[in-house]
């Protein structure tokens, strides 16, 4: 029962890993993997020397860090707030509503974003005009300055509720005696939150943080692709092009297979390296680690 599955995994996961070697070739589909000549690090050098290299690196890193520092804590804060709600109906309502966006596709979310931010009829422009914050409708999606904000906000909108599930469960698992003891010692709700709840769920937070660091360079491939007109929006490219969208553009759209594979491999190696480092730090700091 195990062998067929293992064969599938070898075909669809390990053969592509082996296919990474095309990064060291001048791969041409006509000659195939075995017929294409080896060229060493040529494509890596080309990538590092490409005029857009530093821009791509900056975007990938900045978007990833924004996700790590803003989008990652958001579900934790939501879980902590939900925990303060004593009204069971309200709590259940907020939870049910907040899970919803997780189940719709990025295609639909991008449709929502485009519709809400549209110049002629977007609700955001209408609201801001009514509140007197802006005088003219703003072209949100064609101004590079706003792109990161839109990207991070839509990411939080989609995943905050679903991300909170695990933290809520961790909070539920905290020993109620600790809260009682703290109350007797005269601790208020804020005190209890800081001194009991947060330290109690810290191990869960650290594990998810490590997992997140391993994903750090992914920077939200699908959403960027969808919000930038499949990478065709040239105005946004200086802030929106990441390693992944670059690989997609040069590889799938322009058929520069070896070059794109080299860029992809570069990303993969750094990601694994960061995961290992994050895990090592977590183990030094405390007891929780992935392995």
């Amino acid at each position, binding site marked *: 029962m195990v062998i067929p599955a293992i064969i599938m995994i070898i075909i669809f996961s390990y053969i592509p890993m082996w296919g990474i070697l095309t990064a060291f070739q001048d791969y041409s589909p006509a000659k195939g993997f075995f017929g294409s000549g080896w060229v060493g690090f040529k494509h890596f050098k080309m990538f590092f020397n490409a005029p857009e290299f530093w821009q791509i690196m900056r975007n990938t890193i900045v978007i990833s860090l924004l996700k790590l520092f803003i989008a990652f804590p958001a579900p934790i804060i939501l879980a902590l707030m939900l925990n303060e709600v004593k009204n069971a109906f309200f709590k259940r309502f907020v939870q049910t*509503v907040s899970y919803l966006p997780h189940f719709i596709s990025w295609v639909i979310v991008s449709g929502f974003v485009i519709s809400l931010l549209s110049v002629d009829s977007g609700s955001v422009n209408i609201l801001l005009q009514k509140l007197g914050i802006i005088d003219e409708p703003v072209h949100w999606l064609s101004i590079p300055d706003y792109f990161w904000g839109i990207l991070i906000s839509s990411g939080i909108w989609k995943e905050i509720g679903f991300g909170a599930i695990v933290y809520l469960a961790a909070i539920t698992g905290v020993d109620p005696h600790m809260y009682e003891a703290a109350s007797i010692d005269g601790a208020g709700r804020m005190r209890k939150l800081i001194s009991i709840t947060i330290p109690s769920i810290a191990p869960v937070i650290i594990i998810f943080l490590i997992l997140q660091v391993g994903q750090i360079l992914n920077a939200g491939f699908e959403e960027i692709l969808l919000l930038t007109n499949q990478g065709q929006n040239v105005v946004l490219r200086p802030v929106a092009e990441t390693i992944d969208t670059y690989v997609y553009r040069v590889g799938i759209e322009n058929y520069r297979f070896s070059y794109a594979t080299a860029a992809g491999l570069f990303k993969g190696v750094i990601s694994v390296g960061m995961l290992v480092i994050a895990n090592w730090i977590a183990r030094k700091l405390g007891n929780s680690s992935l392995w």
Partner: protein
Amino acid sequence: MKRSLEDNIIDIVVYTILLLLAVVTLYPFWNSLVISFNAGNDTATGGVTLWPREFTLQNYKYVFKDARLINALWVTVARTVTGTVLSILFTSMFAYGMSRRGLVGKKFYMILCVITMYFSGGLIPSYLLIKDIHLMDTFWVMIIPGLISVWNMIIFRTFFLGLPDGLEESARIDGCNHMNTFFRIVLPVSGPVIATLSLFTAVGHWNAWFDASIYISNQKLLPLQVILNQTIQSILSFEASTTISATKQEFLQNAQSVTHKSIVMATTMVATIPIVMVYPFVQKYFVKGVLVGSLKE
């Protein structure tokens, strides 16, 4: 107990923020629903927010008459059903095998699986593989590469490991082989975990667009999300024309009662409503499922 000032401040802040969050989460769904029921040319003039201004069913009529969209809807349904059934079947069988104590090389298989969770060949090598094995432009390209999910395998395995040993033993005594034990004893008692993982897998298939968009060029095989995205992208190109250009002005003047935007919203509703309908019923299962999944080995 006496309520302190701190209690009141915390309650006010927390309830306000959460209420705001609920509104912000629901509004895009509501607004899209409203736009999908509003005449397209009227929507283009702006200001449609909470209620349709010119109520019409025209957008839905258009969507349900468009042969391309109907075909895409069928592809999506076929993909979701086939993909979910096969993936859950193969993954659970794999997990059952991996949960048996006597399995030779279990540790090696597990390492093989876990590596794939952290490192992959990436987009281009996978694309070349699909090309080389001639899966391009077939229905099965949407099903086969994702047939085995390592993540789901681990969740299934954790569940199977928790089943009492006696269950399997008694089946063995009654003369069941591995296959029989799995299908007649183990699967029937695995309802909750099957329900949860089926939901997640089905949602994944229903929402998938990227694989189809790069591997499939035959219009007859494109799922709903890809078609929807193509229409959205055309709006995006339109929106991106920064100044009110000639074409845009012309567009606004000649706007039909059905516009790109109103079609997108109606299609969006067709793609969203099935999920919104199903998920409250399985919510209690998936919360448990997520928790099992987040447990480590």
